[in-house]
C-alpha cells in the first residue's frame, strides 16, 4: 500500500496546448494517504477519467509528477506500478474458471500455487463467490462478473492502489447497494488505498472517506461526505451533491447583509472578502421549512417520493426546492419559507463567502 502524491499535474490531449481550455486537467495537486478510501466525483468530461488513467499509467501527463510513497512513477508503464483496476464493464477471461481468473494476476507474477490457492480462497470468501470457483466465468451474471473483476484487483496483497472506474454502471439498481456495501466492507477489511471514480454522488459519498469533486479539469472541493453536503465550497458542489441539489438564489448585499427578493436573509456568519460579485445565497432543500410567516412563495410542483415530498416553489421567478417531511401543501398554495440560519450561506462568483459559526 502506498501514499499517492500528485504534484503540479497538467494534461492536454493536444500536442501543443495554448489556452487553458486545451487542457483536460488544468492543475492538480493532491495527497492521498495510505489505506484511505477516496472518490473522484464529477460530470462527464470533468477530467476524472484522465486523472485515473494518469495514476494507473495508461496515460503519461503533459506536465507534473505522480509519486507513490515519494517515488516518482510518472513514466512507468501500468504493469510496473503495482496497481489494480476495476473497469466500467466487467473484464473477465471468458475461457477460464472463476478460480483461474482470480489466480491470473498472481500466476503472471510467479507466485507459488500454494500461496495462490490461499489468497484466492480468502478473496472468494470475502466476495461470497466460493461456490462458483470451479465454474466458467463466461456464464456468470453481470454483477457476479463484476465481483470477479473486483476480486482480481484485490487478490494481490502488494498493490499500491486499487482503482475503480464507475464499476457499478452495468449493475442492476437492486444489486448496486449490495456491491457498494461489499466494496465498503472489503475496504474496511483489506485497508488498501482505493480510488473510486464516478459521476454518481450516492456511490461516491457512500464509498469514500474523502471525496474529490472535479469540474472542467479542476478540483473544486475535497472533503468528507458530510462537509461536502453541509458546507459546499462552491455552488457547483452544492448543486452536484444532494438530490435535489442546493438552491442557489441571486441576492443583493447591503451593509453586510444579504437581501433575497427584498427580504433580509440572515446568514450563518459574517461575510468575508471585499470584492463581492454575482452574490448568491445557497441553501439546501433539506434546510428550508414551511411556516406561518417568512418568504412568500407559490407552490408549483409537488413530488411525493414516499419518505418525504419535494415541493417546488416560485419566488419572483426563482425556483426553490423544499423537502417536506409531513403533509405537503397543494399545488398553487401560497406558503412561507423559513431558512435555517446556520445552513444559509453566501457565495460570491460561485465561491463560499461566509465564515462558519457566529450564528447558530
Amino acid at each position, binding site marked *: 500500500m502506498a501514499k499517492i502524491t500528485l504534484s503540479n499535474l497538467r494534461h492536454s490531449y493536444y500536442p501543443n496546448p495554448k489556452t487553458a481550455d486545451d487542457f483536460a486537467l488544468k492543475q492538480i495537486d493532491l495527497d492521498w494517504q495510505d489505506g484511505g478510501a477516496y472518490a473522484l466525483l464529477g*460530470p*462527464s*468530461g470533468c477530467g476524472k477519467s484522465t486523472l485515473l488513467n494518469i495514476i494507473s499509467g495508461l496515460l503519461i501527463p503533459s506536465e507534473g509528477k505522480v509519486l507513490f510513497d515519494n517515488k516518482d512513477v510518472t513514466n512507468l508503464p501500468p504493469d510496473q506500478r503495482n496497481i489494480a483496476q476495476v473497469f466500467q464493464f466487467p473484464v473477465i477471461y471468458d475461457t477460464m474458471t472463476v478460480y483461474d481468473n482470480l489466480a491470473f494476476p498472481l500466476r503472471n507474477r510467479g507466485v507459488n500455487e500454494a500461496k495462490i490457492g490461499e489468497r484466492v480462497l480468502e478473496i472468494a470468501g470475502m466476495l461470497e463467490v466460493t461456490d462458483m470457483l470451479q465454474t466458467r466465468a463466461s456464464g456468470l451474471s453481470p454483477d457476479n462478473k463484476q465481483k470477479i473483476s473486483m476480486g482480481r484487483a484485490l487478490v494481490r496483497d502488494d498493490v499500491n492502489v486499487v482503482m475503480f472506474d464507475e464499476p457499478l454502471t452495468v449493475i*442492476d*439498481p*437492486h444489486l448496486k*447497494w449490495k456491491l*457498494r*456495501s461489499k466494496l*465498503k*466492507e472489503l475496504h*474496511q477489511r483489506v485497508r488498501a488505498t482505493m480510488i473510486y471514480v464516478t*459521476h*454518481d*454522488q*450516492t456511490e461516491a*459519498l*457512500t464509498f469514500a472517506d474523502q471525496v474529490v469533486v472535479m469540474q472542467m479539469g479542476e478540483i473544486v472541493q475535497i472533503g468528507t*461526505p*458530510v462537509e*461536502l*453536503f*453541509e458546507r459546499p465550497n462552491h455552488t457547483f458542489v452544492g*448543486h*452536484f*451533491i*444532494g*438530490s*435535489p*441539489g442546493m438552491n442557489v438564489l441571486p441576492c443583493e448585499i447591503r451593509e453586510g447583509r444579504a437581501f433575497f427578493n427584498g427580504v433580509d436573509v440572515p446568514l450563518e456568519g459574517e461575510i468575508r472578502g471585499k470584492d463581492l460579485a454575482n452574490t448568491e445565497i445557497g441553501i*439546501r432543500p*433539506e434546510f428550508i421549512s414551511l411556516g406561518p410567516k417568512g418568504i412568500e412563495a407559490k407552490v408549483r410542483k409537488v*413530488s*411525493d*417520493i*414516499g*419518505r418525504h415530498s*419535494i415541493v417546488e416553489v416560485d419566488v419572483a421567478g426563482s425556483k426553490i426546492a423544499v423537502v417536506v417531511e409531513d403533509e405537503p401543501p397543494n399545488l398553487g398554495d401560497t406558503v412561507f419559507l423559513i431558512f435555517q440560519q446556520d445552513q444559509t450561506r453566501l457565495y460570491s462568483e460561485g465561491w463560499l463567502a461566509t465564515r462558519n459559526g457566529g450564528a447558530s
Partner: protein
Amino acid sequence: MTIWLRAGRPNNLPVGALAGALIWPGRDRPGFLVSRKNTMALELVGITKQVGSQTHIKETSLVLQPGHFNVLLGETGAGKTSLIKLMAGLDRVASGKILMNGQDVTRLSTQKRNISLVHQFFVNYPHMTVFENIASPLRVAGFAKSEIEGRVEAAADVLQLRPFLDRRPHELSGGQQQRCALARAIAKESNAVFLDEPLANLDYKLREELRDQLPELFAGRGAVVVYATSEPEEALLLGGNTGLMNDGRVTQFGETAEIYRNPMDLVSAQVFSDPPINTARIEKLGNRAFFGAADWELSGDAMGLQDGIYTMAIRPNYVLPVNTSDAFVPVLGKVQVAELSGSQSSAHFTLGAENWVSLSSGVHPYEIGQEHPFYMNPAKCFFFGPDGKRAV
C-alpha cells in the same frame, strides 16, 4: 392474475364512435391512427407472450391513459422491455388483444401504429444532422415541408436543441443525443410514446434534470406515455401511474404514491423499495405481535388479524437508530456496513437470520460488527399472509 384498474373509456364515448369518428378523419395519411388530445387510451386485454416453452409475459390486462406517465417498474428481466415491445408491435402477442383508442391494433404492424420508442442507448441516425433526425419520422409520414420545419423547430425548442440542429449526433454529448431522440418522439406527435429506461446511460445530474422536464414535455400532448425504469425512486419522482413488474407479471397497478403506500402483496412491496424493504416472520397472538425477542401491541386494522404466522415488511426509513416515540419497538441488530451520503445515513445489519437496513436523515456513527439498537415504527408495518397477499 389479471388486474383491472381504472377501466372505462375516456369521455365515456363508445368504442365504435371513437373508431369511426376519429381514426380515419382524412385520406392524407392512410393507415395512420391520428391522435386527438385526451382521447387516446392503450388497453391490453389478457395479453401473453411466449418464446419457445418460456413464458415472457404472463396474462396481463392494463388500461394506460394519457395525461400522466405510466411507469413500468421492475428489475432487469422482469418483462418491462418485453411488454413494451408487444405494445409497440415489435413482437407479436401469443394471445390477447391490444386496443389503441378502442380499436384493435393487435395485428397492426409497428409502422402503422403511430408510436415512438426511445431506448436506453441513444439511437439516432449517425449520418443525419439533428434536424434530419428529428424530421425523419415526419418525412416518412409524408408531411409538407413547412409543417416538418415547424414541428422540428418546436420540438427542438422544448428540448433546447436549437443551437445544435446542424450538428451530427457524434458531435453531441450523451445528454444531447438522448434529447435528440426524445425530440424525434415529440415532433412525431405519436399516439403512444414508449420510453425504455431512457435515462439509464446518462450522468446522475443530467438524469435528474431530464427526469424533471420529461413529464412537462409530454403534458397536454394526448399521447399515452409508458416509461420503463428499474429505479423505484425514479417512479416516485415521475408520479402518474405505476405498474410493478416481476417475473413477467404486473403485480400491481395504480397511482404511483398510492401503490407505494399500499402494496397489495409482498412481491409488490419488494419491487417498489430501494434499499430493499425489511422483512421478517412474525407471530400474531391476541393483541400482540412477536418477532424474535421483540413484541409489541398491535393497533388499528392489524388487531383484526387472525392469530398465526405472518410476514411483516417495513421500509428502511421507518427503522431508525434513535428512539423518537414511545410507540417504537426496539430491536437489536448487528451492524455489517454503514454508509453515509450527505444528508442520510444507512446501516445494514443482521437481525437473527434476516438482513435489514435502516435509513435515517442526519449523521449517525455506527461501529461495524457491533450490536446497535434500532427502533421501528409499528404503525408502518405491512402484514402479508402465507400466500404473500396483504393481510392488513
